């Protein structure tokens, strides 16, 4: 597992200069986008895969991050660090409020109520005409002091943030907290009978996932220089969910592999046919039927 990982990392580090020498800037952009989506999908995988919480409203935090960045820039805040801190803080807060309510329900109710909250956020944001309404909001790139946020800087920044977040998630999942979170997914009533405050564990994971999704949203706003209502829409939640299912629910690399695979497939199919969404659906169906543990499950033998 170590070697392939190191090779991928080296490849990603070396890619921008190679790309610019060979005129492959388009692919550098695609990789940036994939890394940002990988962060968002990995955050969803924490609660969906490891926590067993099927949230159908993850776009709320992703989109909120993007909108926070755009609105702060519009209001004259130009420091990237400040924007990041506020966006992550707000996303975490929103996840705390939504999670505190939703986690009192289970099963289908949980899915529906997370979706309902996300839709409320969507309509709320779109109703602010001064922030673009349904047209979205342009978001210039902020200043980071130490460096200028060029396309290449954003590429490396996204890589650094993704790597840092994955390292954090890896520690978390294998620490006491992560073990309990997974135990709750396996058997909630048993975990409660052992004396674990189930609700607190789930809520904390939910907030953390929201914060990471918010950070991904900020990066997305930097990338497209635009905060789109689409980022908040339920289709975006479904998209992130598809990535996790495709990559492997509760598999550590599930979010990353799913984001990469889905983005690449979409890119390829979009060029070939206008019915590309049908193709994506068929591929997802094939994965669910033939590789229930996703792409990551094909890679790793052990459970």
């Amino acid at each position, binding site marked *: 597992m170590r070697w392939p990982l190191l090779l991928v990392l080296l490849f990603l580090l070396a890619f921008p200069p190679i790309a610019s020498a060979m005129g492959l800037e388009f692919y550098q952009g695609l990789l940036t986008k994939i890394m940002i989506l990988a962060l968002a999908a990995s955050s969803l995988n924490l609660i969906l895969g490891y926590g067993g919480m099927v949230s159908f409203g993850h776009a709320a935090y992703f989109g909120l991050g993007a909108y926070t960045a755009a609105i702060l820039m519009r209001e004259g805040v130009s420091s990237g660090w400040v924007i990041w801190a506020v966006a992550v803080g707000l996303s975490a807060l929103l996840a705390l409020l939504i999670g505190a309510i939703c986690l009192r329900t289970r099963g289908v109710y949980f899915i529906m109520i997370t979706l309902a909250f996300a839709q409320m956020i969507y309509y709320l944001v779109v109703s602010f005409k001064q922030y673009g309404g349904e047209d979205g909001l342009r978001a210039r790139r902020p200043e980071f002091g130490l460096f200028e946020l060029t396309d290449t800087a954003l590429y490396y920044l996204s890589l650094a943030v993704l790597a840092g977040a994955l390292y954090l998630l890896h520690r978390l999942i294998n620490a006491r*907290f992560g*073990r309990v979170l997974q135990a709750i997914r396996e058997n909630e009533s048993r975990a409660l009978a052992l004396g*674990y405050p189930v609700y607190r564990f789930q809520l904390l994971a939910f907030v953390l996932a929201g914060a990471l999704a918010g950070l991904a949203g900020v990066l997305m706003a930097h990338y497209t220089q635009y905060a789109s209502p689409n980022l908040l829409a339920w289709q975006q939640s479904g998209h992130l969910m598809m990535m996790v299912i495709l990559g492997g629910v509760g598999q550590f690399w599930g979010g990353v592999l799913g984001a990469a695979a889905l983005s690449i497939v979409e890119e390829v199919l979009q060029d070939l046919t206008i019915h590309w969404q049908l193709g994506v659906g068929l591929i997802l169906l094939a994965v669910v039927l033939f590789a229930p543990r996703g792409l990551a499950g094909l890679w790793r033998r052990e459970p």
Partner: protein
Amino acid sequence: MTLLETHQLSKRFGGLLAVNGCNLAVKTGEIHALIGPNGAGKTTLLNLITGVLAPNKGQVRFEGQDITHLPAHARVHRGLARTFQITNLFRNYTVRVNLELAVQARRGSSFRFWQPVFKEKALTEEAFRVAERVGLGGRFEVVAGQLSHGEQRALEVALALASRPKLLLLDEPMAGMGPEESARMVELIESLRQEFTILLVEHDMDAVFRLAQRISVLVYGQVIATGTPEEIRANPEVHKAYLGDEGGVA
């Protein structure tokens, strides 16, 4: 000394009063059996005591303190641990991980986010001691779902033991067991007598009369009699309501 006390405890499911003004007292150090026909409300009573369900009326007191509104997880830390009538394990995890989780719940905070848990040797060591205690030392690395029924019931008890409770609530530990497995379970419970106060719900009357110092009889959600095994045997009301059905135990 009274360790656990329920006072006028009631639980309603729609039109059904599953537990109906139940008064029960368990003294420190005893094995107290709770018997009663199917549907009498025994499991519901355990759920009220452990906080899985909230009562409609009444009180639960533990060590003299009112715990009626304490959440379930907090009651475990006070010293209440239970087993389930229907085996309830982490079926996909090994005996080891099941027990490590139980030990971890008691030892230190689980809101730790950085140190890998597999490096915590103390958890494994204590988990292994508990496994040995219930005879699962040789099955430590076996996935719980692959254990025999008797072994799963033993693990069920072990999970409760690992929290080192002051009061152990056992909900039909012999459920679904053959005579051999039952005998082993009786032996295990016997071996816990010195260390734990036990409230034992059980249909197996031989086991109940062998183990219990006191017996309470629950019928339609009410305790109709409490006493020593001899007193319960001799109680005509108990006979009418319950023991009569069992035939030959008296």
